[in-house]
């Protein structure tokens, strides 16, 4: 029992340390964002797209729109691939091929994002350049790269969900005379709603937070949405401006402001995930 008490104390300490450090991270970002808001206001910077730190104009609208556009585009482009891969892995392949298929997808989940960025620069950007006659850098290329990047993650989660649909449901549907296709659309996919939403939210988080792969192909200019012209997102602008605006300069607070928005968005996504989890249990 004494071991219990000591162990519990040590573990409590580790837990407290973890919480304290990460609360500090949030506080540091929040403090910078607070300084920024008290100097520039909360709504103004969100509605302005003029980003010129030297003239003390910190409009981040272009980056917010850029992040949303790139993420949305990636999800739309990834959706057919995710549906195809998850149905193939869960409902078509069986036995050893199925296991191999899942392992290959898992390997692609682990491929570093900088490699996807490399693919974007070497394959996607030249392709867009040839097809459209533009430079090839921009949100469209970034969306394509992100789509390829989130397909494995999202597919694995969708695949596991589809596998977990109780076979009683599937066999009941087939037994009533429904075809395999009808069973897929009307029984299996609706029954997997919760898990699919979960995978969707994880994919949104991964796309929204991705920095390096997007930075390599988006071009890096503050411009409100043009799919084929260089743009920027919240994360890529953080990456490029972190070097230009050292700490304790006014511009640096703007970076904290953007970082705080990213953290808030992630918190919302995680909260939504917990709601979705409740949905599947209830």
């Amino acid at each position, binding site marked *: 029992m004494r071991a219990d008490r000591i162990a519990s104390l040590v573990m409590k300490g580790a837990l407290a340390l973890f*919480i304290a450090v990460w609360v500090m991270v949030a506080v540091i*970002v929040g403090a910078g964002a607070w300084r920024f808001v008290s100097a520039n206001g909360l709504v103004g910077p969100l509605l302005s797209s003029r980003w010129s730190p030297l003239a003390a104009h910190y409009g981040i609208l272009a980056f917010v729109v850029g992040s949303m556009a790139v993420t949305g585009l990636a999800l739309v482009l990834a959706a057919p691939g995710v549906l195809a891969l998850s149905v193939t892995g869960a409902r078509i392949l069986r036995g050893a091929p199925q296991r191999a298929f899942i392992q290959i997808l898992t390997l692609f989940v682990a491929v570093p994002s900088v490699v996807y960025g490399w693919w974007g620069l070497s394959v996607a950007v030249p392709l867009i350049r040839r097809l459209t006659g533009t430079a090839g850098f921009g949100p469209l290329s970034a969306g394509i790269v992100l789509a390829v990047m989130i397909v494995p993650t999202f597919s694995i989660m969708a695949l596991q969900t589809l596998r977990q649909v109780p076979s009683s449901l599937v066999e009941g549907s087939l037994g009533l005379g429904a075809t*395999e296709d009808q069973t897929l659309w009307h029984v299996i996919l609706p029954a997997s709603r919760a898990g699919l939403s979960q995978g969707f939210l994880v994919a949104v988080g991964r796309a929204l937070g991705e*920095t390096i792969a997007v930075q390599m192909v988006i071009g890096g200019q503050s411009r409100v949405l043009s799919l084929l012209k260089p743009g920027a997102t919240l994360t890529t602008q953080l990456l490029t401006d972190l070097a230009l605006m*050292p700490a304790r300069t006014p511009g640096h607070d703007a970076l904290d402001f953007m970082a705080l928005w990213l953290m808030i968005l992630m918190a919302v996504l995680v909260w939504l995930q917990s709601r979705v989890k409740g949905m599947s249990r209830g």
Partner: protein
Amino acid sequence: MADGQWRGARPLKSPGQGRAAHKILAGMAVLAVLLLLSVVVPLAAQAVPALNAAFLFGRAPGAIAPEAVNTVTMVAISAAVSFPLALLAGLYRVEFARPSRWTQAFDQFTGTMLSVPSIVVGLVVVDVAVVRWHWPVSTLTGMLALALMNWPLTVALVVEALQSVPGLYRDGSWALGASRWQTVTRLILPLALPQMIEQGGMAVARLMGETAVLIYTAGVNVGPGWALGGPGESLAVHLWLLRTEGVTDLASAQAAATGVVLLGLVFLVLWGSRRLAEWLQDTA
């Protein structure tokens, strides 16, 4: 085929009927796999001209060995620091804390922090370690950044692994008179360990490929030899730098070769952790 035998009791439809959508999806899946392979295959193809002993192991400028050493040491040390801390925190969360609003809030907190974009972690580490503490842009600062971002992910995977052990096992152990600590160390941990190791392998693989958090913390240079306070460019950062700044043919071949080495390390970690997990599962 069996029409003769089944006269009068013919099935309403043949088993192959009504699978058109499945066939279309299978075809699309083949295309999707080809698309994914188009990420890896050209990388390997372009890497061929640069993949030689001098590039991999040489000491000449441009050789990859210092970056590989930086990557492996930074990842190994930061993982070795963050895993035990996360294990203790996760153990308390699952095995000792009573489920309540607070444990729920903790799970949300961990989930949020593990999905914070890595560049935000980089921003905070630069502010604190480099600016306030005057740490150099070095392997040491890089390790701090990696350990920090690995921490919540590892807590989450420990919690998940522990929760996958059925509660009845704990009840049984307590009923036999074991304390919580005994239950955890003799029963729960050995059962949860394989999953922790396999998921831990994924976490380490993620650290190896991490780029954004390291650019301003570990830097984009390498020193003459490995040092804790020396510049600590990693393989992933090297690949990023070569591909975004280098324009020569040699640079692009070297970038691809760096990518191949990085992928090799990542797959090695995944394979090793999986084998270790399988071995533990078999001996348990």
